[in-house]
């Protein structure tokens, strides 16, 4: 396993995430896609840390941080999703098009 394999895998993950973001209609599906993209990025961090960094630990800490932040983000996002679902009984993003505050 070389660095190139890892980068290609991360790119594939990121592309899957983007595809999901663009094609999914369900809000939860979108959140899952965002997670997939984030994991692609995390993998990139970890791979570069492993293959290139003089001190691999410093590089490995970043994915941990990202995971923590994205967990918080998910908690907030899921709360919004639940609130939306209570109000509208559906989560299709194409019907959620009012940009009013």
């Amino acid at each position, binding site marked *: 396993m070389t660095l190139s394999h890892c980068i290609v895998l991360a790119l594939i993950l990121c592309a899957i995430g983007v595809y999901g973001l*663009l094609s999914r209609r369900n809000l939860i599906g979108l959140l899952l896609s965002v997670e997939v993209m984030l994991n692609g990025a995390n993998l990139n961090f970890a791979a570069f840390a492993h293959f290139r960094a003089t001190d691999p630990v410093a590089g490995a800490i970043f994915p941990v941080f990202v995971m923590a932040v994205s967990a918080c983000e998910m908690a907030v996002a899921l709360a919004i999703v639940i609130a939306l679902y209570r109000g509208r009984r559906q989560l299709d*993003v194409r019907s959620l*098009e009012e940009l009013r505050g």
Partner: protein
Amino acid sequence: MVEQILNHSYLALFFPLAGFIIIGLGLGRESRKLASAVAIAMATLALCSSLALAWAYKLTVLEQPGLYPDQTLVATRTSWLNFAPGMSADMGVLLDPISVMMLLVVTSIAFLVTIYSIGYMRHDPGFVRFFALLDLFVFAMLGLVLATNILQMFVFWELVGVSSYTLIGFWYEKPAAVAAAKKAFIVTRFADAFFLLGIIVISQQAGGFDFSLLNSPAIATLLNHQVAILGLDVNLLSLTSLLIFAGGWGKSAMFPLHVWLPDAMEGPTPVSSIIHSATMVVAGVYLTARMFPLFAAAPGTLTVIMTVGALTALFAAVIAITQKDIKRILAFSTLSQLGYMMFSLGVAKTTPGGDILVFGYSASMFHVFTHAFFKCMLFLGAGAVIHAVHAGDLEQMGGLRRRLPWTYCAMLTACLAIAGIFPFSGFWSKDAILLAALASGHLLVFAVALVTGGLTAFYMFRLFFLTFHGAPRHGHTDPEDPWMTCAIVILTVPTVFAGGLEHLFTATVIPALPAPLVHSQAAWLPWLASGVGLTAIAGAWALYGQGDLRLATRLCQRLGLAHRIIFNKFYLDEAYLFVTRRLIFAGLAQPAAWFDRQVVDGAMDLCATILQAGGQTIRCLQNGQLQVYLGAAIFGVFFLLTFVYLI
């Protein structure tokens, strides 16, 4: 004391203005008693202050001839507009013989008309509004009369026009009144446009607005040269003076701009009395007299004034004979008398030998003075008649002598005065005008004046006999109102006796000339004029003395076409309608409106349509769909990356 009065000379102006503000803004629609009390109080105060001012003027100027050689005193002066150094206009109060005369005439007539109106307007729903507007008019008229410079005069000139407009259209629910108000405003505005042009030209040349500056010989010399305008070689002095005179042409309703005055009779009768006979319409004559030194220096201007005046005098008198509405007859009579005043100014100083002869000037001003009283009274009397029988048509009157005895006597004196019968006031002023016309050597004008005098006597007594004599041709008659009768009876005093002031007047207005010149030049003239007047009255008696129209109707049928043309006022109104409707509206205004709608607005609409269509297209992008935005962003990133890579 005298100095105090002169220092506070603006008070004469202030009281009517205060009346307008208090009544117009402070009082409700139903506070009739309070409104009439305020109106009378303000009219009395204005009259008192103007009397005091005249007294102070007499003591200061007339009794110290050495101090004021041109008899002009500027009592109050405050700086008003400072356009540039050497180009500024002041507001002020100018006192000279003619302005003091007008001041007294305006305030005294306003006082009497206010009293009269309380009776005349008693049952009108617009009672309070009427007095507010009347006070506004008096304020504006006094400002015009006392103006120290031509710009101040112009401002008040327009204010007078506005108050005339509002008072002609006072009964605004009557379409005829609204049309008449618009007509009066538009016609006078048309003339005022030229007036303003004249003011601009002369003030630009002279570098100031003051009458003393504009009337100085230096300005006349400065302007007296040829200029090329539109390829024509014209004298700038003549052009400027005619432009200024054009203002008076419209305001004093000279032919052919006279069309608004007969229609202005749609207003309440007290308004016709004060505005459209005694004071406002005289403003044109007053302007001409004010600018007289300039006009007299201009080649040709006085000839134009004389011709227009004489033409109007004769023309209006001829029409007045055929009219049937009592107020219209008086309106045409006013036109005719205004023509008298105008041509009298025009014949001044135009002797063939080039001698200076300004007798016509004082004669004209004296006629302004006497005419104001007797014409005001004629209108007030006509108003009393209309008030009694509720109609203005002569065919519905007759036999009112018993019902309206006071009005009958008063109208008789006024008719005798306007007919120029000795010793009533009109005799003296008309005789002075005839003498001026004769002395100037314009025999045609003299003949016109003489004939017009006869016609005047004829139509006035036609009106008089048809109204008061014969059998009644109407049902119910209201009794005389004490307020109205009181004003009419007071007016008989100046109507009868104002002629006695002639020598004093002439001596004041023309200090250089010895007063006894007046009636000694042609001793046969008063006899001739009286003879013409008495013959005309006898003719009126023969035709209408029975108080009915039978004889006259037969005569009219005999005359046929001529009578019809004159009765329809020579079809001038129709000619104006043709010019305005057919030529200006259909030929000019409608194409312009079409151009405006289709081309100007069309271009604007096209811009808007393009922008709207663009907006509609772009709107689809801004749809609130997060995924579309994201897709666009990713597409953009790819695009940029490709772009960077390719370069």
